[in-house]
């Protein structure tokens, strides 16, 4: 298999285009800028359109417009730029326009705004959190698939390590299943018939062709997201079956935790990892099941505690939840600080572990249920 050494930004751009994305509009903001630059070259080669918008608000609205015509369209930003996009993301959720937002975040402080949303109304946003470039390449295509499947905007939560680290990847279109036809797209086909299609949050339709209106439509949208919540959660567990202590982490924090935990297991500690892959829907029921016999739940995230709320809501024994993360920012402000480092994370976990006694534990390294290879394939396997 021939591989190309690509940084995550280029790999995500190439993967999105392989998935059929033909419109991209965004505004530069590190570490998202690499993705915009890559798109500006690759989209032209693919015969699509890439626009450097004048602001994040303009970019996301351009993307909404392109998506309304039925094209696979995307935008991206990070941090405060995503904050600017909240209104448009909410509108697209309420008027059922699918597109992908590549949030190449600077750190893990975007969790709230991705999962709780800062726009108006009863909507939620499917958010995928890859742990490395390999998974980001898959998620770049899955994000479009889920957006089209549910007619809603989706977010891919990346970060500086995913944006800038290079690994060998082979990009090709993934077959992710059948999708409904885009018979709602504004493609001009009903021009002159008096029955034009509308993209309208209030869904009032026309006097001659009334829609559900705000009451019926917004209730239907709320029901839709409740239905998505029940089927689209994804997660991964490692060494969790016999764990006394369970670390919960997402994205790059989970990548580092995984390595540290493998080492701790080899030393005899009964510690495992629970990794939400979708931040929304948060895999609450799966976490409840995974924590039934766990004494301590250690939440590791590089922020002041955002996923912590969701972990507390679902952990089987809430009093055992401990926060071992924190705000940790590189001096440039653009990336992670010293907390995202294996020896530091190892110490934070170790302070909550009991000393290993002389006898080997049942969950020593080598347990097939806990190996990374056994837990892989969670992309499809995590959905209930």
């Amino acid at each position, binding site marked *: *298999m021939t*591989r190309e050494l690509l940084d995550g930004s280029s790999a995500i751009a190439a993967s999105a285009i392989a998935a059929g994305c033909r419109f991209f509009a965004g505004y530069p903001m590190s570490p998202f800028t690499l993705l915009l630059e890559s798109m500006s070259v690759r989209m032209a080669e693919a015969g699509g359109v890439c626009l450097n918008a004048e602001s994040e608000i303009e970019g996301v609205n351009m993307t909404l417009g392109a998506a309304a015509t039925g094209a696979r369209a995307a935008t991206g930003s990070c941090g405060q730029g995503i904050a600017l996009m909240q209104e448009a993301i909410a509108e697209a959720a309420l008027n059922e326009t699918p597109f992908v937002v590549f949030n190449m975040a600077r750190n893990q402080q975007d969790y709230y705004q991705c999962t709780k949303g800062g726009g108006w109304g009863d909507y939620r946003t499917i958010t995928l959190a890859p742990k490395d470039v390999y998974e980001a390449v898959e998620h770049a295509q899955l994000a479009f698939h889920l957006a089209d499947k549910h007619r809603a905007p989706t977010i891919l939560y990346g970060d500086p*390590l995913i944006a800038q680290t290079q690994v060998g990847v082979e990009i090709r279109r993934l077959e992710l299943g059948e999708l409904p036809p885009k018979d709602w797209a504004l493609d001009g086909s009903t021009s002159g018939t008096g029955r034009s299609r509308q993209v309208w949050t209030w869904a009032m339709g026309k006097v001659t062709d009334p829609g559900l209106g705000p009451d019926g439509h917004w209730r239907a949208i709320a029901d839709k997201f409740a239905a998505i919540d029940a089927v689209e959660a994804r997660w991964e567990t490692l060494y969790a079956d016999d764990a006394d202590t369970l670390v919960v982490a997402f994205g790059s924090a989970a990548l580092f935790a995984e*390595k540290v935990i*493998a080492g701790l297991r080899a030393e005899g500690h009964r510690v495992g990892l629970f990794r939400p892959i979708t931040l929304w829907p948060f895999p609450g029921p799966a976490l409840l099941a995974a924590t039934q016999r766990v004494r301590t739940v250690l939440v590791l995230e590089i922020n002041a505690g955002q996923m912590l709320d969701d972990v507390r809501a679902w952990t089987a024994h809430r009093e055992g939840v401990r926060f071992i993360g924190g705000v940790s920012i590189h001096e440039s402000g653009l990336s992670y600080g010293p907390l*995202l480092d294996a020896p530091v994370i190892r110490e934070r976990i170790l302070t909550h572990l009991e000393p290993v006694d002389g006898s080997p534990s049942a969950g020593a390294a080598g347990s097939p249920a806990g190996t990374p*290879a056994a837990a*892989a*394939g969670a992309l499809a396997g995590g959905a209930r």
Partner: protein
Amino acid sequence: MVTGIGGQGIQLLAKTLAQAATAAGREVMFSAEYGGEMRGGPSLANVVIGGVGTDDPGTGTGTVTGTGTDTGARLTALPILEAADAAIIAHHHFSERTCERLRTGGLALLDSSVVERDRLPEILDLTRREAAGEIVEVPAADLAVSIGAPMSSGLILLGAFVALTQVVEPELLGEAMERLLPARRRQHIPKNLQALRLGADHIAAHAGHHAPSRAFGVPALATTGTGTTTGAPA
């Protein structure tokens, strides 16, 4: 791990190695950290080549696993390495983390025309490592000036590193370097190729002064083309 300051060609050297190893069919991870300064600030790069070096899940350079997904094998290396089997130290400034994380028995290749030995962090334990034959010095910056290519010291170090470790075929380095150079730098290709050879020749000429690196075992690639590579240290 490769460490130096802005302007020493650290990123190009590391990316060249990463590209060459990928062209050789290996699983590779490249990661970097540097600031905004074009000259004088820290420049750090990490290259992990799957199946090469210590394969220890707790602190290892990387383990290649086959997941059976469309994207094939994955290298489980962290972008911020906890430990490394080798270090290329082009400057004593900003070298603390690299010196701290070089494994016992690992190779340390120093640019002796720039690095001030008494300003290296104590944690490197230079005296002990030197006695164990783990330190190799190449006067890369001086050699670069001698061939009229002062910017090429990083590639001299790379040529030396590959001669010491044989982690990739040397020919692949030149090809990778040419692919990496932007249009405005292509006039440096001939001198860059000369620099790669010069580093290798320096090692060959001084072979009696150091032991071959014990940290690197370079296993043969799987020939079945499954996309999964496994490796064991030599």
